[in-house]
């Protein structure tokens, strides 16, 4: 495992998420994996149609899948981290079987467990998450290591035929926390009211 490598990656996670969500489509639904990805998404705007996780590690992709099946006319974007994705690798196989065309998964891969002391994850070794996604049957799988590539793939991330998988190598860095609301029931109700109106909580 190479603990130094990701200290030198050019892409910065907050910038990446900001680029993704700049001029965000009002119909886009986002699931954000626990830890830094949830803070990154919140830094770009605490929106009702974000579902940021504070736990449920390994479950972000499955939540995105349930949402994608329920809302086939909407675009679903799961933004998560490498540690969270590694805990739920099997869920990529489950997505592949369903093959929802409206689901995109984007991993902010800093090769570290950021919330627990920046220990190396398996991607600091030879584990290639985009290759895992390809092996489970995803046809759109990309590794992204620089801004030019990210910019050229933006249309695919935002609107391309899914299921698609984007592994973005980002610099290992601890950034100021930008926290979403913590109460899960509130986050759920806020999301459902934004989708269905106030009847959703009646």
């Amino acid at each position, binding site marked *: 495992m190479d603990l130094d490598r990701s200290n030198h990656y050019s892409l910065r996670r907050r910038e990446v998420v900001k680029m993704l969500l700049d001029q965000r489509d009002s119909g886009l*639904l986002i*699931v954000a994996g626990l830890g830094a990805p949830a803070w990154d998404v919140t830094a770009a705007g605490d929106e009702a149609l974000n*579902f940021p*996780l*504070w*736990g*449920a*590690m*390994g*479950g*972000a992709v*499955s*939540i*995105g*899948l*349930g*949402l*994608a*099946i*329920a*809302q086939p006319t*909407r675009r679903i974007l799961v933004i998560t981290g490498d540690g969270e994705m590694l805990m*739920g690798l*099997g*869920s990529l*196989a*489950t997505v592949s*079987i*369903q093959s929802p065309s409206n689901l995109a998964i984007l991993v902010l891969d800093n090769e570290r467990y950021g919330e627990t002391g920046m220990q190396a994850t398996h991607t600091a070794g030879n584990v290639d998450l985009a290759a895992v996604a390809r092996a489970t049957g995803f046809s759109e799988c990309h590794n992204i290591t620089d801004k030019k590539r990210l910019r050229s793939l933006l249309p695919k991330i935002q609107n391309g035929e899914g299921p698609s998988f984007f592994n973005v190598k980002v610099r290992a860095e601890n950034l100021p926390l930008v926290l979403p609301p913590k*109460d*899960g*029931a509130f*986050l*759920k109700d806020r*999301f*459902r009211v934004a*989708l*269905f109106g106030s009847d*959703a909580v009646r």
Partner: protein
Amino acid sequence: MTLWTNDIFQVLVNHQVRQVAYVPDAGHTNLIKRCGQYDEMVSVPLTTEEEGIALLAGAWLGGDRGVLLMQSSGVGNCLNMFSLTRTCRMPLLMLVTMRGEWGEFNPWQVPMGQNTEKLLKAADILTFHVDESNRLGETTEAAARMVFEGPAAAAVLISQRIIGTKTFME
């Protein structure tokens, strides 16, 4: 098809359950087949049961009702993911076929089978243990009502006595 499978299927239809997530169990064979043939339902085979807890949370965010079918050993795989159900107050309906409780031939099933209900209760999940097949329809109906009108999380535990004891000969 055994009668109790029809009863449970009808309850799921009546409650407009759409996403049917499962890790297969012999006891669920007919129900899985029946749901798979019904156009209004989407079958989602999982690689491990906790995916189903997360999947059905996403389903509910998007307005779909769901059910998770699994055997008792799968409950152990779900424990941390139940935090999502509880913290977010998500509805969750589980139908669990029991192993390791009634003439079990495989001792490796016994530790989870003997503790399934205890673990579910520890996770604040309502449990309904059924050991007579003619009670399965009404029990699933009672559980589904509490789940979808609550919201609540509930598991119907289908006794190994109903399913029959598995042997290597089958």
